[in-house]
C-alpha cells in the first residue's frame, strides 16, 4: 500500500491558496499537489490545444459532471444510473431563469444549483431506502420520470426542441465579462470549475470524506462505529447532485440552449463510462475519462458515424481487464518495475 503521508501541503496556484491535506490511506488515492498543478496547467492551456474552443469548454464541463458523479461511485461506493437528472435539472433551471425570469448569469447559476440540490434531496431520500442494484434502478427510474415530465411539459422546457436562451454579458462589480466571446466564456467556466474542484477535494479530504470512504469499503462496519450511514449517503448524494447541477448550469451558459437530451438516461450511461474509463478510484480519473471520451468522439466521428462502437469496445475491455481505469496504468507500471 502507499506510504502514509501526513504533511500538510499548501500549493500556491493561480486561483489563490489551495490547502491540500493529502493523507493517503488504505485505497484512498487522493490527489497529490503536483497532479493538481498539472491538471490546472492543462486546463489553462486547453483552448489552445483543442481544435476549437467550445470543445475545450465541453471537456471541462463534463469533467466537473463526471467528478461529481465520482463522489458517489468512487468515493462513496454508490452506483447511480440517474445522475443526468441533476445535470439536466441544473441546466433547465439555469436556462429558465435566464430566459423567463430575466435573471443574470450568476443568479441563474445559483438557481440551477439550488434546484438540483432540492431534487437531489428528494430523490436521494427516496432512493437510499434501497441498496446496491435496486438503488441503481431507482435512480434510473427517477431520472426517466423527470425526463418524461420535461418531455411532456413542452410549454416550459420546449419539449423535444429544447429551450433557447439569449447570450449574456456578466457585469461583476463594474468588471464586464463578455460571455459572448468563446475564449472569455471558457475561462469564466474554468474559473467556476476550479472552485468546484477545490471544494470537492476539500470535502473528500475532510473527516466527512473519510466516513464516505469507509462506507465504500464496508458499510456495515461503518454503521457499527456509530455513523448514521444513511444520512452520510444522503449528504454525499446531495453533494454529487449539487455539483452536477453546477455543471448543467455551466453547460446552459456555454450552449445558450437547453437540449432536453441532457436529461436522458444515455447521458447517465455516458458519465458512468467516462468515470470507469478514467478510473473511479482517482480524483482526476473522470477528467482523464472525459478528455479521452470527447477526444475519441471528435477523432472517430469524422470518418465513422458509429464512433460509440469503439467506445463500447474500449469500455468492455476496461471493465474486464483494467477495472481500476486508465489512471491506474502509471501505478501498475511503477509496481511492475519495482518487482
Amino acid at each position: 500500500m502507499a506510504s502514509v503521508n501526513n504533511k500538510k501541503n499548501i500549493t500556491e496556484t493561480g486561483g489563490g491558496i489551495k490547502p491540500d491535506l493529502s493523507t493517503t490511506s488504505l485505497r484512498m488515492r487522493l490527489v497529490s499537489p503536483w497532479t493538481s498543478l498539472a491538471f490546472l496547467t492543462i486546463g489553462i492551456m486547453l483552448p489552445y490545444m483543442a481544435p476549437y474552443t467550445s470543445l475545450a469548454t465541453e471537456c471541462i464541463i463534463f469533467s466537473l459532471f463526471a467528478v461529481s458523479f465520482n463522489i458517489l461511485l468512487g468515493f462513496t461506493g454508490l452506483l447511480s444510473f440517474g445522475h443526468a437528472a441533476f445535470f439536466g435539472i441544473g441546466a433547465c433551471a439555469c436556462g429558465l431563469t435566464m430566459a423567463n425570469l430575466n435573471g443574470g448569469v450568476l443568479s441563474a447559476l445559483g438557481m440551477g444549483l439550488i434546484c438540483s440540490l432540492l431534487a437531489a434531496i428528494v430523490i436521494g431520500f427516496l432512493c437510499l431506502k434501497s441498496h446496491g442494484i435496486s438503488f441503481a434502478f431507482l435512480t434510473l427510474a427517477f431520472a426517466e420520470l423527470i425526463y418524461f415530465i420535461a418531455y411532456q411539459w413542452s410549454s416550459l422546457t420546449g419539449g423535444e426542441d429544447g429551450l433557447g436562451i439569449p447570450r449574456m454579458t456578466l457585469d461583476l462589480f463594474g468588471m464586464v465579462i463578455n460571455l459572448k466571446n468563446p475564449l472569455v466564456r471558457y475561462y469564466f467556466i474554468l474559473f467556476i470549475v476550479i472552485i468546484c474542484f477545490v471544494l470537492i477535494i476539500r470535502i473528500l479530504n475532510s473527516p466527512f470524506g473519510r466516513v464516505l470512504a469507509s462506507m465504500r469499503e464496508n458499510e456495515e462496519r461503518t454503521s457499527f462505529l456509530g455513523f448514521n450511514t444513511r444520512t452520510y449517503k444522503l449528504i454525499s448524494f446531495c453533494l454529487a447532485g449539487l455539483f452536477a447541477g453546477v455543471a448543467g448550469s455551466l453547460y446552459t451558459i456555454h450552449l445558450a440552449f437547453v437540449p432536453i437530451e441532457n436529461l436522458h438516461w444515455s447521458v447517465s450511461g455516458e458519465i458512468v463510462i467516462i468515470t470507469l474509463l478514467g478510473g473511479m478510484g482517482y480524483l482526476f480519473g473522470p477528467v482523464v475519462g472525459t478528455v479521452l471520451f470527447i477526444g475519441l468522439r471528435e477523432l472517430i466521428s469524422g470518418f465513422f458515424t458509429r464512433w460509440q462502437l469503439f467506445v463500447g469496445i474500449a469500455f468492455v475491455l476496461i471493465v474486464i481487464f483494467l477495472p481500476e481505469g486508465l489512471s491506474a496504468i502509471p501505478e501498475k507500471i511503477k509496481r511492475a518495475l519495482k518487482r
Partner: protein
Amino acid sequence: MTLALLAVGLSIIFGMLNVVNFAHGAFYMIGPYVAVLVAQATGNFWLGLLAGTVFTGLIGMAVEFFGVRPLYGKGEILPLLLTFGISMIFTESILAIFGPLGNVLKKPAIMSGTVDLGFILYPKYRLFLIFFTIALTFLLWLFITKTRLGLLIRAGTQDTTMARALGVRVKPLFTLVFGIGAGLAAIAGVMSAAIQGIEPYMGMKVLIPAFVVVTVGGLGSFRGAVIAALIIGEAKCLSILIWPPMSDVIMFVFMALVLLLKPEGLFKSR
C-alpha cells in the same frame, strides 16, 4: 405480454446469476433482426422466430462465457457495467450494418385478421401472443422447478460452492441460464416486432420498462416478474385512456410507490 417474457428473462438471469443484464435490450433487438433476415430468405415466420431465438441465445452464451464469467465474485457492479458496454456494442453494430431505418417483420398469414370472441373482435395475432406467452412461461416454470437440470441450476444458484462440492459443474449451467434469458428476450423481440416493426433502438426503449417490472416484482422473482408485467402493462394502457401524458410516467410512479412501501418488491425472490 411481450414485456412479461422480457422481464422473465431478465429476472432469471438476475435471480440465478446475480447479474443485472443491461444487454437484455440488445438481445431483444438482435432477435428480430436475425428473424427478419431468415424470414425474408425462407418466407417462413416460424423459421425466423426459431433462428432469431437460437442465434441470440448463442450470443448470450458467448457474452456470459467471455465477458461475465471472469467477473463472478467481484461484486454486482462490474457485470452490470460490462453488459451495459456490450449492449452499446450491439446497438452500434446493428446501426452500422443495417442503418438507422426500421424494417418490418410480416406476421404469418394464418395470424392476420381478427377472431370473434363473442363480445369483442380481437386480432388473431394478439390472441396468439397471449397464449404463446402463457404457455412459454409455464414451460419455463416447469423446467426450473420440475426437471433435474432446473434443480441443478437452482442448487448452483443457492450455494455455488456446495453444488460444486457435490460434483455439479456449475459454470456451464450459468452459461445456459444466460443463454435461455437471452433467447427469451429474442422471442419477446420477434413477437413484438410483428406488431411494432423493428428498429435499432427498440431494445433501449423496452429495457427500462423491463427493469421497472423486475424491480417491482421483486428482484429475481419469477412469479413477481410476470404479475408485475401485467399490472404495469394495464396501468399504462388505462392511463392512456384517462390522460395520455401520464402514460410514460405512471410506471415510475408505481415503482417508486412499491419500493417505498415494500423495498424488496411485491414478491420476494425464492
